[in-house]
């Protein structure tokens, strides 16, 4: 039977049936059906890159990959929330840039005002950054939920406005002179040998997992994305739920912005320019549906990590950057094709 649009719909949690044949092949097939293609891709990538470059599997590089992936992992989780609600957030990059610029300006200014209370300056400055990003989320949320503007245009518009403001605030010049201790702690600090940004990411992964699977709000977000009319009829405050999604996404982007600012030790208006598309891509290859209602935190973390890992591996393997573009594009497509294939296996009672 030729594939037909029937099977093109949303993914479903159909439990795979018992293994019908024995052997390793059947095992692989079962694992594939259960967890999807990303783990396989990850393993394959690790093996290939380890063969291509001896420095790939070193401790130092693993720490690098972990730290590099933090930003995309975080933003992708926020993006996921919005995507599950049936929306889109193209303004995550702007939220990052605004956080960076505002918190840097804030810290520099406050450090001048309270030279003896550096930590106070840092915390207040960070809060100003959060405030700016939450404002972005609030405007997005109000537009989408209450004015029913298409999320695409709403977040694109806000992103343009926000970028203009960030550039205006700095005149395009990076804001430097932030307290050293800020970068030393959030950017380079380590606890039990683990870089601080990685710790922050782990905390957020746990929080987001709990939020999406163990709380009412999580269920409501899935519900609103699944079918907003039905959610409305199911006594869900759809507007409030949508607003929450954009706020959550902006907040996570803001945390990312702060971590990035600590990492680069300056407030930059150009941070995060391409992260919106990248985070959506990470979500989609992790099986999040752009029509809403479907997606899981752990897959998204894996999806984002996979993208960063592949970029790292290709850099180490000294693959030319034009070739990297070709390979990465092809990999994204391949991942989704395999996922589609898995879905067919499930449908056929794999």
């Amino acid at each position: 039977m030729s594939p037909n649009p029937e099977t093109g719909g949303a993914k479903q949690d159909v439990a795979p049936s018992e293994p019908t044949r024995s052997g390793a092949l059947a095992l692989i097939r079962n694992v594939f059906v259960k967890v999807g293609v990303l783990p396989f891709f990850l393993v394959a990538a690790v093996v290939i890159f380890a063969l291509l470059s001896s420095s790939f599997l070193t401790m130092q590089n693993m720490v690098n990959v972990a730290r590099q992936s933090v930003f995309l992992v975080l933003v992708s989780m926020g993006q996921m929330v919005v995507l599950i609600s049936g929306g889109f957030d193209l303004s995550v990059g702007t939220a990052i840039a605004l956080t960076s610029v505002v918190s840097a300006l804030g810290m520099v200014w406050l450090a001048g005002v309270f030279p003896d209370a550096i930590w106070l300056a840092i915390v207040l400055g960070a809060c100003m950054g959060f405030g700016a990003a939450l404002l972005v989320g609030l405007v997005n949320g109000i537009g989408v939920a209450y004015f029913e503007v298409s999320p695409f245009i709403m977040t694109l518009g806000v992103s343009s406005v926000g970028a203009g403001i960030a550039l205006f605030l700095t005149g395009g010049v990076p804001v430097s002179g932030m307290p050293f201790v800020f970068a030393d702690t959030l950017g380079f600090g380590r606890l039990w040998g683990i870089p601080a940004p990685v710790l922050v990411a782990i905390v957020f992964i746990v929080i987001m997992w709990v939020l999406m699977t163990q709380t009412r709000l999580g269920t409501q977000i899935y519900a609103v994305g699944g079918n907003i009319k039905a959610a409305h009829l199911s006594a869900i405050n759809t507007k409030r739920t949508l607003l929450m999604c954009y706020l959550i996404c902006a907040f996570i982007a803001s945390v990312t912005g702060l971590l990035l600012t600590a990492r680069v030790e300056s407030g930059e208006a150009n941070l995060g320019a391409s992260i919106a598309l990248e985070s959506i891509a990470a979500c989609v290859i992790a099986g999040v549906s752009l029509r809403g209602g479907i997606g899981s935190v752990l897959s998204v973390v894996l999806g984002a990590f996979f993208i960063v890992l592949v970029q790292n591996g290709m850099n180490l393997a000294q693959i030319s950057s034009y070739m990297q573009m070709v390979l990465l594009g092809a990999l994204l497509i391949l991942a989704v094709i395999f996922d589609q294939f898995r879905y067919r296996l499930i449908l056929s009672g794999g």
Partner: protein
Amino acid sequence: MDSWFPYPAQQVTPPFSADGEVSDVSYEALESASQPWNICVSFPHMKDAYWLGVNYGVADEAERLGVNLNLVEAGGYTELTTQISQLEDCVAGGAQAVAIGAISGDGLNNVIAEIAAQGIPVIDLVNGVSSEDITAKALVSFYTMGAETGRYLAEQHPAGSDPVQVGWFPGPAGAGWVEAAHQGFMEAVEGSAIEVLEPRYGDTGREVQLSLVEDVLQANPDVRYLAGTAVTAEAAQGLIRERGLVGEVELLSFYMTPGVYTGIQRGFILAAPADSMVIQGRMAIDQAVRALEGEDLISHVGPQIFVVDPDNINDVPRENILPPDGFSPVFSVEN
């Protein structure tokens, strides 16, 4: 092949200072490296002829000296985080020295400090960073390039002469080199008869710059000069011809590309300062090898800037200021 050095250069003392003393020197490079060092070069992007020129410089110099080269590019001036990751990856991949064409003047300081702390020499290439931890700088600042362009105009229209309008197209808003060139240009024309119109920021894509130019011509029919990125000048040539404004509106670019070079040759573009990006690339590799081998090095140096215009274009050695025709990017050199 004739060696490219000695090359007229300018040294800044004390090194790495913004307002240091500039003196003319003659740059001498090593004949060859003692062993095939692994050098990593990081570019903001590899999408235009300017960076292709730098690419030619570093690749050819690595070839000549007999060292290994790995080149990474971040994909654009908004990709600071990518550049940081790439630098980390370079070091993890075994680079013994790195040369950086920085996306941000401040944003890379941390990663540079980390790299330098591992004893790896860091060379600041073309764009300039504010870090104290670098080993050497091989660059001509874009501030100077902007200033050279401004000075060229200011000399022709000193204070007191008839005021003239200049349309100014610095490039994408927020990029470090754009802001530097902008600052240099504005300071150089200050006090002259030049009136600079509201700067028109925009991506260095041709269609974007073309629209900006069209709109400025529209809004300011009296405009006498259009100065800006190489893309601006290249894109505006056709428009000026089409409108029959040749001779009435002159074009300037604040850096050199093959298109600008041809434009100057044909007389469609008035002038552009040449920062010899090929030589900057060569110097960076030479400095890296020197640092690795413990040789003396001039820690803050750049090729001498000169303004190319129709008068001198035929005397300028093209291979020093532009990539050769038909050169295609080289991402890795193995020796």
